[in-house]
């Protein structure tokens, strides 16, 4: 059984079709790049996988289950926006994660927070946008989850932090987990990707291993992306 199975998944917002009969099977033990331009359906797909959107048709199965309480126990999700309560500080947020997620590794979180120079007692409302993003990522990546769904994890941070995040993702990689990274900053993450999914106007137009793409086309994933999505 694949870790994630998506069948004929369709999502419509009124007359707009955000996802059009998407079908994917993603196995554990790999880092997947969910790549596509703005509005291609990447965020919509991740939100459905988290149960934050209800699909119009089709299904998503994680470990054979529909998104719900059981899947949320094993899925670590980084949304495309700051969602942490602004009245809490880092320590309180760690307490909360520890209370709700059995797989939360506090010592890993503390190390990441220190590495990134965050103040554990600083309230969220006094943090800059970039600092909030870093903290959110620390909390998500400090979980020993089976599925990581990262929506634009490197979009709003500086290059040094970007490198740290990618190193963290690689170091978190294990045989039992699948990491899905949604982004359009392909050149930055290409080196860590095992599998690549191109989404265009809500449809999967390519799903291949990164190495396979490079061998078959003689091009980098970034170059192929630019060709496929040329305006």
């Amino acid at each position: 059984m694949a870790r994630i199975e998506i069948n004929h998944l369709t999502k419509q917002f009124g007359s707009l079709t955000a996802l059009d009969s998407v079908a994917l099977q993603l196995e554990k033990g790999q880092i997947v790049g969910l790549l596509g331009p703005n509005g291609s359906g990447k965020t919509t797909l991740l939100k459905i996988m988290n149960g934050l959107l209800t699909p119009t048709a089709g299904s998503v199965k994680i470990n054979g289950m529909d998104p719900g309480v059981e899947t949320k126990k094993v899925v670590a999700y980084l949304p495309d926006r700051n969602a942490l309560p602004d009245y809490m500080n880092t320590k309180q947020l760690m307490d909360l994660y520890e209370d709700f997620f059995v797989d939360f590794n506090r010592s890993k979180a503390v190390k990441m927070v220190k590495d990134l120079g965050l103040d554990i007692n600083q309230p969220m409302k006094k943090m800059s946008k970039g600092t909030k993003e870093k903290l959110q990522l620390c909390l998500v990546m400090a979980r020993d989850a089976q599925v990581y769904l990262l929506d634009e994890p490197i979009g709003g941070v500086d290059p040094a932090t970007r490198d740290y995040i990618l190193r963290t993702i690689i170091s978190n990689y294990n045989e039992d987990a699948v990491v899905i990274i949604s982004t359009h900053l392909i050149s930055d993450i290409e080196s860590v990707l095992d599998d690549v999914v191109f989404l265009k106007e809500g449809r999967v137009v390519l799903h291949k291993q990164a190495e396979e793409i490079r061998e078959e086309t003689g091009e980098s994933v970034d170059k192929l992306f630019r060709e496929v999505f040329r305006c």
Partner: protein
Amino acid sequence: MLGKLLKYEIPALGRRLVPLYIGWIATAALLGLMVGPLQKESEFMIVISALLYTAAATAVVVMAVVMIIQRYNNSLLGDEAYFNQVLPVTASQHIASKTISAMLWVLLSMVAMAVTGIIIAMFSGHFLDIFKVNWLEFLSKVDWLTVILVLLVTVFGITQSVLQIYAAITIGRQAKQHTTLAAIGAYIGLMIAETFVGRGVTEVMSFKFYDVFNSIAGFRMTMLIALVVTIAIGVIYFFICNYLMEKKLNLN
């Protein structure tokens, strides 16, 4: 998991309300002083302190209502929902935690009101008058069954009102745009439906059989019916919220 949700939800509301309670009690002390020992100093100050006390009371009520609505809307259907809705808890646990927390703070606001009354009595120098009353005689004359029924109707009535607001917000969020307007429309719709149900039940069950104004038994029966209807309507609102959050959640 409900206990864990409450552990974080109760302080989330309290962080705004507790400072207001403190301010309210301070204005009560000032009012007590002005109507008591300092009464002869200035009539103007009595008016000012009474206005301050009223303003503080209004601030508590307004803030309590705003926070109860805001906590539900932001944390379960707004940006914070991207954090809360991925916690491994059910929709019903989320709704229950918001409702219980709201109820607790409404009750604490009532307690704060009673405390301000005592503070006014203390600072005005009339506190000892409380002990002049023969409490044992007074308490022995109280019709406790009726008092308990009225209290239950009040508590469940407030809970039902909170759930009505939650249901209206959740229905409003189903709209593709203008969700606030849709929520207000849903609230008005629910109010009208509730009025019809209430009137129907009252006509059929209560006034036909009991002379409310002349009989204590009739009044008790009316309170009992009101309690049952209030709980039933509250349960319906809870299920509306739960169904929409579980089956039709669409965070934009």
